[in-house]
């Protein structure tokens, strides 16, 4: 019994840390609707800055001053990010800011590496709080007790801030209804800067307070950001109280989960999130978002003029002739790029016409890749069976997940897709007997007529072109119209006899199938499949491609895939700090093309024609 109480306290300490970071994320989203993907980066900055100060000034003042400095540094940089970057993007399509913050993530990773070096830093322990006390005979670290108190104190502080100050009331009003706050004459620009400052300050504080618990390292950002998102979504976006409740829930689940089933730690939080979202589509304490009215509508999609069709056909013909001139490696890069084009196009069906953002599209890409590889490895069957199996298994998976996902919308939907992807990822990662675990499945090479790289390239080209053409036709066919109608106005669509969810569900499944085909092609192109195929980073790559190219155009995702993959492979090869360079390029592109590359171009050339 006393042991369980101690475990409970341990969970509380963990929950406090989670709450600090998640509350900041929740506040930022609630007011600005920005999905701050860089939140983990500010957490990491807070930790590094605090650690550096504490190590430089080796005293109690240094430690506590370091905590304050870390939080402030993160807050100030957050405000700088808002001023310099995000505010230029408020009129862009929803989630475009996510792309910008992704660029920030990359830059911060390399900046921290350059500033503080690659080795983990071990900061000092909290002066006066290094020991332990015995409660019910169990040792409990003093610092844990400190954190347990601090979490509720910060919660109370935030409550007072939001309920007892004019500024806080304005922030709450903005969370409820942005348009109305603007109409009241509130200076939204200052409000947003301040909110980013506060949110990032909390992230930095959360990071700084981690110093006494372990080392400060370069992987902190990614480890935290996903978990913080889970807490925010489980609690309800924009709800600080919800974040508090969810942090408690998840902290305790982790503490007790490892007692009952130690292997489940990888997936537990995602299982919980999935269950919560299925039962409560807006999180524990969240409310349905106020339907934003009068937001900027996307441009009308028009079929490409005939000359563009001819140009595309010419392009495909040129690509088909590539093996005549390109070497083995160039063909591999081309094959890979084509596969990513199909992957991005399939995601675009969801995000563009479907209006459903997915943070877990890698699930279907990976499922397709694993289908091909498993058929190959366990049934001994080659490409002829493995490749068709890829879209089939992916579609089956998407069919099941989609049924749950289309019941949600916005970021909730996106996070549920992420939960499914993570669950699949952990299955692939842990079911070693079948999937080979993290070592993956190797030797999945195409045999027979497609063994030669050029032949496989031609096969890929044919299937990708067919897939992209099919996805394009769908958008202009009645089904695509139906999807777009459901996206533009679910109310009107339902009033016109359209079952919006059912069509979204079908689109989800179809997008899964095309992503699965891409995954199957990828398995045979590289000869191997790993859990990284299902990884968050693969999902994020897809998002970046679609957003970079422009979500409101059909050619956007194709261009985005080519540009992003081109940048990444070229960067990887030649530049030492390639992540910072890639992140910088993304930021510049985002600022230069706030509608995405193709979106901005067609906007520019389309303006003279229309209106």
């Amino acid at each position, binding site marked *: 019994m006393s042991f369980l109480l101690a475990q409970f306290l341990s969970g509380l300490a963990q929950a406090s840390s989670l709450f600090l970071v998640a509350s900041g994320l929740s506040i930022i989203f609630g007011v600005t609707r920005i999905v701050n993907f860089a939140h983990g980066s500010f957490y990491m900055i807070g930790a590094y800055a605090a650690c550096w100060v504490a190590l430089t000034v080796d005293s109690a003042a240094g430690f506590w001053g370091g905590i304050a400095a870390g939080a402030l540094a993160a807050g100030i940089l957050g405000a700088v990010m808002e001023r310099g970057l995000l505010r230029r993007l408020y009129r862009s399509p929803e989630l475009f800011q996510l792309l910008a913050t992704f660029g920030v993530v990359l830059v911060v990773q390399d900046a921290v590496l350059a500033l503080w070096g*690659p080795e983990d830093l071990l900061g000092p322990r909290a002066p006066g709080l290094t020991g332990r006390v015995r409660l019910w005979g169990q040792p409990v670290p003093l610092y844990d007790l400190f954190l347990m108190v601090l979490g509720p104190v910060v919660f109370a502080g935030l409550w007072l801030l939001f309920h007892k100050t004019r500024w806080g009331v304005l922030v709450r009003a903005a969370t409820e209804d942005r348009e109305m706050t603007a109409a009241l004459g509130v200076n939204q620009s200052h409000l947003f800067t301040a909110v980013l400052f506060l949110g990032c300050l909390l992230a930095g504080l959360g990071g700084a307070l981690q110093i006494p618990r372990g080392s400060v390292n370069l992987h902190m950002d990614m480890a935290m950001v996903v978990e913080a998102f889970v807490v925010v979504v489980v609690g309800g976006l924009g709800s600080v109280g919800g974040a508090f409740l969810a942090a408690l829930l998840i902290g305790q689940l982790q503490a007790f989960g490892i007692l009952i089933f130690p292997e489940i730690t990888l997936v537990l939080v995602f299982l919980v999130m999935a269950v919560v979202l299925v039962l409560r589509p807006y999180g524990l304490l969240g409310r349905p978002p106020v339907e934003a009215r009068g937001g900027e509508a996307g441009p009308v999609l028009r079929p490409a003029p005939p000359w563009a069709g001819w140009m595309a056909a010419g392009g495909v013909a040129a690509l088909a002739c590539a093996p005549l001139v390109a070497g083995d490696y160039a063909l591999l890069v081309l094959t890979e790029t084509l596969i990513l084009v199909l992957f991005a196009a399939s995601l675009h069906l969801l995000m563009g016409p479907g209006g459903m953002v997915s943070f877990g599209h890698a699930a279907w890409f990976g499922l397709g890749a694993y289908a091909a590889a498993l058929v190959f490895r366990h049934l001994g069957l080659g490409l002829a069976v493995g490749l068709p199996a890829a879209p089939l298994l992916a579609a089956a998976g998407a069919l099941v997940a989609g049924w749950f996902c289309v019941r949600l919308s916005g970021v909730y939907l996106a996070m549920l897709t992420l939960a499914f992807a993570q669950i699949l990822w952990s299955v692939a990662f842990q079911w070693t007997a079948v999937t080979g675990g993290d070592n993956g499945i190797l*030797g999945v090479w195409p045999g027979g007529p497609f063994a030669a790289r050029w032949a496989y390239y031609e096969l890929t080209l044919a299937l990708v072109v067919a897939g992209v053409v099919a996805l394009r036709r769908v958008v202009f066919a009645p089904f695509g119209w139906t999807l777009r109608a459901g996206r533009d106005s679910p109310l009107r669509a339902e009033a016109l006899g359209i079952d919006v969810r059912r069509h979204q569900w079908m689109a989800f499944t179809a997008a899964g199938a095309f992503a699965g085909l891409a995954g199957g092609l990828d398995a045979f192109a590289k*000869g191997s499949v*790993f859990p990284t195929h299902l990884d968050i980073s693969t999902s994020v790559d897809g998002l970046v491609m679609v957003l970079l190219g422009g979500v409101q155009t059909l050619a956007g995702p194709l261009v985005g895939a080519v540009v992003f993959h081109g940048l990444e492979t070229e960067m990887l090869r030649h530049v030492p700090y*390639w992540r910072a360079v890639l992140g910088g390029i993304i930021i510049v592109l985002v600022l230069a093309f706030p509608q995405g590359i193709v979106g901005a171009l067609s906007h520019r050339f389309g303006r003279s024609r229309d209106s």
Partner: protein
Amino acid sequence: MSILSRLSLHGFLALAVTAGACGAALAADPIRIGEINSYTGLPAFTIPYRQGWELAVAEINAAGGLLGGRMLEVVSRDDGGKPEDAVRTANELIANEKVALLTGTYFSHIGLAVADVAARNKVLFLAAEPLTDAIIWSKGNPYTFRLRPGTAMQAGMLVDDAAKLSARRWATVAPNYEYGQAAVAAFKEKLKAKRPDVEFVAEQWPAQGKIDAGATVQALAAAKPEAIFNVTFGPDLAKFVREGTTRGLFDGRAVVSLLTGEPEYLVPLKDEAPEGWIVTGYPWDQVKTPEHVGFLTAYRNAYNDFPRLGSVVGYTAMKTIAAAIAKAGSTDTPALVEAMKGLSVESPFGIITFRAGDHQSTMGAFVGTTAVKNGQGTMIDWRYADGAAFLPPEDEAAKLRPAE
């Protein structure tokens, strides 16, 4: 070391390597080596590794190169910690850069992926750091050799000492992926073989990089083990050590821990390094053999820093490649593969041999006890455990490999 000095040193070495290459180009074409590692994914481990091989390249070229004056030229690539990028990069090195052979990799799954590409393209691959034994045994291939002692070898080295402990109740804690699973399995099997009376009373499998240390320590303590076998490393280890120390988990309990004596893991813990743990590692400041002192001096002169284990591995990998090319007398793959079999190389740890039977080197590791001296973690009472003693006989090992 400050950023500035690191950068300038780097530049200096690069200059030296290039200059060497330029000089040699007059005499003959350089020999191009393809090298892949997770430089951005795991800089703490891979940067010392890179410094190690850069030192070796500088030495080899300064001594006049290979095959009658041809310089070594390393084409180095970052895989970003992703196996799919490693696969693409390996293809690029083979097809575009026309490298004679491939080397590098840290993560096990990336090592396996590159090994697969090497086999398909019939190019030699010297896997430097991956610990998984699949790379030489269950998924071994004719073109892949591995330098560093693998998981089973390192676990075996620890079992000798673990079996001498009086402890009968054991708990394990390991990261939840192939490396952790394989290490625990190997340790359990070997310990049970020597001590049938031991029992394993608890297992914890924290997710790599995401340990909930307080809860994990509590759970381990609740099982009341007499000894603990630890496989966590890096940030997880730091958290585990702090929480375990604070909560008294290690009081009166023996801890046997894989890799913890390597400077990569011990140094960041500073004066909080655990004391009295039985570990594998590398006491860089205490090894006084002439071959090691020579390496240590050269390394410190070049970088004004002390070597990590990765530095030794990187250095030895490049020395191995040089020895193989010299022995083969050419850079043709069949000749190189033949040369690798039974190849003996002088490493900072003494002479090591690449076994023909399973393509594993006999490089060993140091087994000792951790201690804190002058505010730094270090190893005491250590001995060098020769890898050869912890490998199955070659003919048995060969049977573990797929038919060629």
